[in-house]
């Protein structure tokens, strides 16, 4: 046997070909009795197209193992065959896609957490074209070309990026990756819940149950959640111990019954506490229907819970660590604790002839239980020099061979699974192949301190045992049980009970496991994997350290260790130990990695909840939306608003419709829905002073009944918003804002009112939703309105920039003579509920006057012809009023932003100023955002002189026009410059920004 791998063909033949005379074969590796599965219910499921039988209570992983299937996937980088390693959430390899049809495909699920149901269809991932014949494994031959830092190095620098996009990314995308997202929308619903409680216990193992019992008995409102289908944790695979004189599983059943009977206690299975957030907020993901063969359409698939708990008790257990040795990733190599759990909880033997390699006493429990179940435990290789604790002694007494001071030097794969291991002794260099179909490993346990650390609790290094344990916790958070370092049932129960001040249960019949440090062979080389999911080997870790990556966060990023979907739950401590050994420093000096939510992946659906489709963002429509729809409007989104963009008539495209709307409005009249304008009523004896301090313009001197254009600056001196101030009375203003700036402007005003000038007697009310605004613009605007108005709106009675309360069509309205078109203009503010009636009264009169309705696109052209700016289009947060040619109001004192306008940079002569541009070709409309330069063929790296902010075809001028911000622009009027576009350089002439009626005569008629 020495020196050559062997195999046993018998076993292999048993493991292939599930069908026998058209009937599914029974599970070959299920025990006759024991465990918690329902053996009488045959559940049919498929994996990669092959049908199998499982039992009620199985996970996909336990059912596959019961059928002798270990190979479940290919590794990410080298496409190595991989098997099931663990039994719980920490599983790194067994990632599967569960397909339920109609968009119900969930990739990247851990087979260890997928509950079996009748008809379950699961697929392996990351293999092509199939799991057994994987062409991607050829990648493994290129392994020397894919060293640590491959992705990192490839993507650094412009040349690397190009290579990445052209060569590597398509290859890597094809070969690697983790499952595929479904291509159709998720048809399921997801719910959101909020809850408050006195005590939230995360984890329903022995410690968590003891804590919940103590809390519940004390009357505390308690939530006990557990990620598994069945609460119990380690108790589910505990067959020997007695708790308070009864078998552990019986104690579990009694405890759960007691908890269920308490009305103030909620036990939540299938619920993962995935994140611990500040101030005692815990995020829970509850899986409601995934385990059901036929989910009810009335139930959400998952629920996101946000729980605010007075006390958070973390009982999240510990995660078993793998050993790092060559070939430790073969299918059939798995964690010893997992193998024991498969046996005792699911009645599954993970192999027939096993070898166990361990650096920790707990693996002997697996050895003893497997031997009792009739599995041939051929040898326990203990990596420690001595193995003399109570558990190793019990194993020896049971006739199990133990080799202390041993080493695993290699493994051999035959077909789909391990068939032998190469063992050696540390002291004499002798080596020998042992045949076996499973190699169980244990390198100690890592307390699951994730939630404690997420809550910003400190970690403390416990050198003797080689673990990080919870240190000083966040207020209101405590850790109990294995995640707090408990190493046996008695300790876990005691910590749980103590957390709630309860009586401590008495445990009998448990052989204690003596804790010891993890074993790390600093020189281990070859295919010795540290991170299975991301294919990180010990060599890669040493290389990272050799290349100067010393902090553990850097080693992680460079090697990608711990960056998989499992976040390195099994591998991180080995990674840390190897990096520390390579640097020759103690582990704590490398620091710990940051623990970030979620603990296990949470579906996007759960996080999004109902916020999708129409519920993603509210849609705001104006009170005249139905009228616009009836007119055949094409809408555009402006923030949350739906605004009518243009109103095409038969045969018109947007350009034709906009030209007609603009020309008709200039020639006759146009009706425009301006209801989205922000409106704020500013009221109080100090209202005028208040506005004077917030706007560039002189508001204090404005007379009642008059309006003034106002520009709001940030304190830094940049244009923030603009609008019209209408003074209704000495102590009352109607202020408008831009559509998108309404909320921000009100908040800005409130800030100064509340915190800077609390002495001013002024009050602010948002009236945006109260007023609908119907703009009637054009030379015939007054003709359209006058017969409907009870009162005089002649130019003498209601001149440009005047405001009056008047009845229009019997509706009380606030009528303003303002214009954003450059024409004679009226903006009729009517209470929103009356807006449709007013529209209906105006619409036929517009038609009779030869006018039109127009949309936002025509509005933009009309204002651009006049050089009126739009905040956010001509401005971008770096533009001053001076840049736009605007002056400070006469006689003004200090106002917000004024001092900043005097800073040297704000006065520089080469600031970008608002100008007009006329392209050489009058038919050519420039692209908005295009850059402006002095040469027609600027060399690369030439600094732009400015950019185009607005650009349209102007019907009034019969040619294209543009507004631009141009360095020293006002001094450049008449200069010829260039706009380089993809199709060639466009010559432009710099002009004044007002293209039409610069004297404003049309406004005042």
């Amino acid at each position: 046997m020495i020196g050559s791998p062997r195999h046993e063909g018998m076993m292999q033949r048993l493991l292939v070909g599930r069908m026998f005379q058209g009937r599914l074969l029974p599970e070959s590796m299920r025990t006759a009795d024991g465990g918690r599965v329902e053996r009488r219910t045959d559940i049919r499921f498929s994996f990669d197209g092959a049908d199998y039988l499982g039992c009620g209570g199985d996970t996909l992983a336990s059912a596959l193992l019961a059928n002798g299937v270990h190979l479940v996937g290919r590794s990410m980088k080298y496409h190595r065959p991989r098997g099931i390693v663990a039994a719980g959430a920490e599983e790194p390899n067994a990632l599967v896609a569960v397909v339920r049809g109609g968009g119900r495909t969930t990739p990247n699920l851990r087979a260890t957490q997928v509950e079996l149901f009748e008809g379950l269809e699961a697929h392996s991932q990351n293999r092509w074209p199939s799991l057994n014949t994987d062409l991607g494994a050829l990648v493994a031959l290129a392994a020397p070309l894919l060293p640590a830092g491959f992705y990192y190095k490839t993507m650094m620098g412009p040349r690397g990026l190009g290579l990445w996009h052209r060569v590597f990314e398509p290859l890597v995308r094809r070969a690697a990756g983790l499952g595929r997202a479904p291509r159709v929308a998720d048809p399921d619903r997801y719910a959101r819940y909020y809850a408050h409680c006195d005590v939230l216990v995360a984890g329903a193992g022995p410690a968590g149950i003891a804590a919940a019992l103590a809390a519940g008995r004390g009357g505390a409102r308690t939530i006990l959640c557990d990620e598994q289908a069945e609460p119990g944790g380690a108790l589910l695979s505990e067959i020997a111990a007695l708790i308070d004189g009864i078998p552990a599983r019986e104690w579990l059943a009694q405890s759960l019954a007691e908890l269920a009977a308490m009305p103030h206690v909620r036990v939540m299975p299938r619920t993962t506490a995935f994140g611990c957030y500040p101030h005692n907020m815990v995020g829970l993901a509850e899986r409601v229907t995934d385990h059901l063969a036929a989910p009810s359409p009335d139930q959400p698939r998952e629920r996101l819970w946000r729980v605010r708990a007075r006390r958070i008790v973390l009982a999240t257990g510990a995660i078993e660590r793998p050993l790092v040795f060559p070939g430790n990733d073969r299918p059939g190599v798995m964690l010893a604790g997992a193998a024991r759990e498969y046996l005792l909880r699911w009645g599954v033997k993970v192999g027939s002839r096993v070898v166990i390699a361990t650096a920790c006493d707990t693996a002997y429990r697996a050895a003893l239980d497997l031997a009792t179940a009739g599995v041939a435990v051929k040898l326990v290789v203990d990596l420690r020099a001595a193995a003399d604790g109570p558990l190793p002694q019990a194993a020896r007494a049971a006739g199990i061979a133990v080799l202390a001071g041993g080493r695993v030097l290699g493994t051999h794969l035959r077909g789909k699974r391990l068939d032998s291991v190469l063992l050696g002794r540390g002291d004499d260099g002798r080596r020998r192949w042992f045949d076996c179909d499973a190699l169980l490993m244990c390198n100690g346990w890592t307390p699951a301190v994730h939630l404690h650390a997420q809550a910003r609790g400190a970690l403390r290094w416990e050198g003797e045992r080689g673990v990080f344990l919870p240190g000083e916790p966040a207020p209101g958070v405590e850790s109990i049980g294995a995640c707090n370092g408990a190493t046996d049932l008695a300790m876990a129960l005691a910590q749980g009970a103590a957390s709630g001040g309860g009586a401590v249960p008495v445990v009998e019949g448990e052989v204690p496991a003596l804790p010891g440090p993890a074993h790390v062979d600093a020189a281990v080389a070859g295919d010795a994997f540290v991170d299975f999911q991301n294919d990180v080997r010990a060599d890669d870790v040493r290389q990272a350290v050799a290349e100067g990556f010393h902090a553990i966060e850097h080693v992680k990023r460079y090697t990608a260790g711990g960056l998989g979907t499992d976040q390195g739950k099994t591998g991180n401590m080995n990674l840390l130990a190897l990096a520390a050994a390579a640097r020759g420093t103690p582990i704590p000096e490398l620091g710990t990695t940051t623990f970030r939510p979620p603990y296990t992946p949470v579906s996007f659906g759960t996080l999004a909840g109902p916020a999708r489709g129409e519920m993603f963002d509210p849609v705001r429509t104006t009170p005249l939306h139905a009228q616009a729809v009836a007119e055949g409007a094409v809408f555009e989104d402006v923030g949350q608003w739906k605004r009518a963009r243009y109103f095409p008539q038969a045969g018109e495209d947007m350009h034709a419709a906009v030209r007609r709307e603009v020309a008709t409005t200039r020639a006759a009249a146009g009706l425009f829905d301006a209801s989205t304008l922000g409106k704020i009523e500013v009221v109080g004896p100090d209202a005028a002073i208040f506005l004077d301090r917030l706007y560039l313009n002189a508001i204090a001197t404005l007379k009642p009944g008059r309006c003034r254009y106002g520009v709001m600056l940030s304190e830094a001196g940049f244009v923030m918003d603009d609008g019209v101030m209408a003074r209704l009375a000495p102590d009352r203003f109607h202020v408008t804002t831009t559509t998108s700036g309404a909320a921000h402007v009100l908040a800005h005003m409130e800030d100064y009112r509340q915190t800077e000038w609390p002495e001013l007697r002024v009050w602010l009310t948002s009236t945006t939703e109260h007023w609908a605004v119907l703009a009637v613009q054009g030379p015939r605007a007054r003709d359209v309105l006058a017969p409907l108005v009870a009162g005089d709106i002649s130019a003498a009675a209601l001149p440009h920039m005047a405001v009056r309360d008047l009845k229009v069509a019997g509706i009380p309205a606030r009528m303003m003579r303002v214009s954003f078109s450059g024409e004679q203009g009226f903006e009729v503010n009517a209470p929103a509920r009356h807006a449709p009636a007013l529209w209906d009264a105006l619409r036929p009169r517009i038609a009779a006057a030869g006018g039109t309705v127009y949309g936002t696109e025509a509005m933009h052209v009309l204002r651009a012809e006049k050089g009126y700016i739009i905040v956010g289009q001509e401005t971008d947060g770096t533009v001053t009023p001076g840049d736009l040619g605007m002056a400070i109001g006469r006689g003004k004192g200090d106002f917000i932003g004024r001092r900043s306008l005097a800073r040297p940079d704000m006065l520089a002569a080469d600031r970008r100023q608002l100008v007009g541009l006329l392209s050489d070709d009058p038919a050519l409309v420039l692209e908005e955002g295009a850059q402006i330069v002095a040469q027609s063929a600027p060399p690369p790296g030439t600094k732009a002189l400015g950019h185009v902010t607005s650009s349209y075809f102007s019907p009034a001028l019969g040619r294209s026009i543009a507004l631009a911000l141009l360095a020293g622009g006002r001094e450049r009027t008449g200069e010829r410059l260039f706009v380089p576009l993809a199709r060639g350089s466009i010559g432009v002439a710099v002009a004044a920004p007002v293209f039409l009626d610069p004297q404003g005569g049309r406004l005042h008629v």
Partner: protein
Amino acid sequence: MLLIPCPFCAMDRPEAEFRHAGEAHLTRPPDPAAADDAAWADFLYHRANPRGVIAERWRHVHGCGRFINVLRDTVSDRILASYRPGEKRP
């Protein structure tokens, strides 16, 4: 998600009801025109951003609408006090 005590509502309310509003106790010079460029730039742009306790403003925008001051530890996120604008930092 933080729980922020609102001194106007006299209740702990969830962070989602608030909007952060920057560092507190910045004093706008009473006569900005008299401030030199360096002092003005300091007022506009320079913030303490401490590792530790910061006095910061929040607006209870989906509640009472008031601006409030909060003392928060930026490392632990612990909130040490909340008080009304104009009141002295405790």
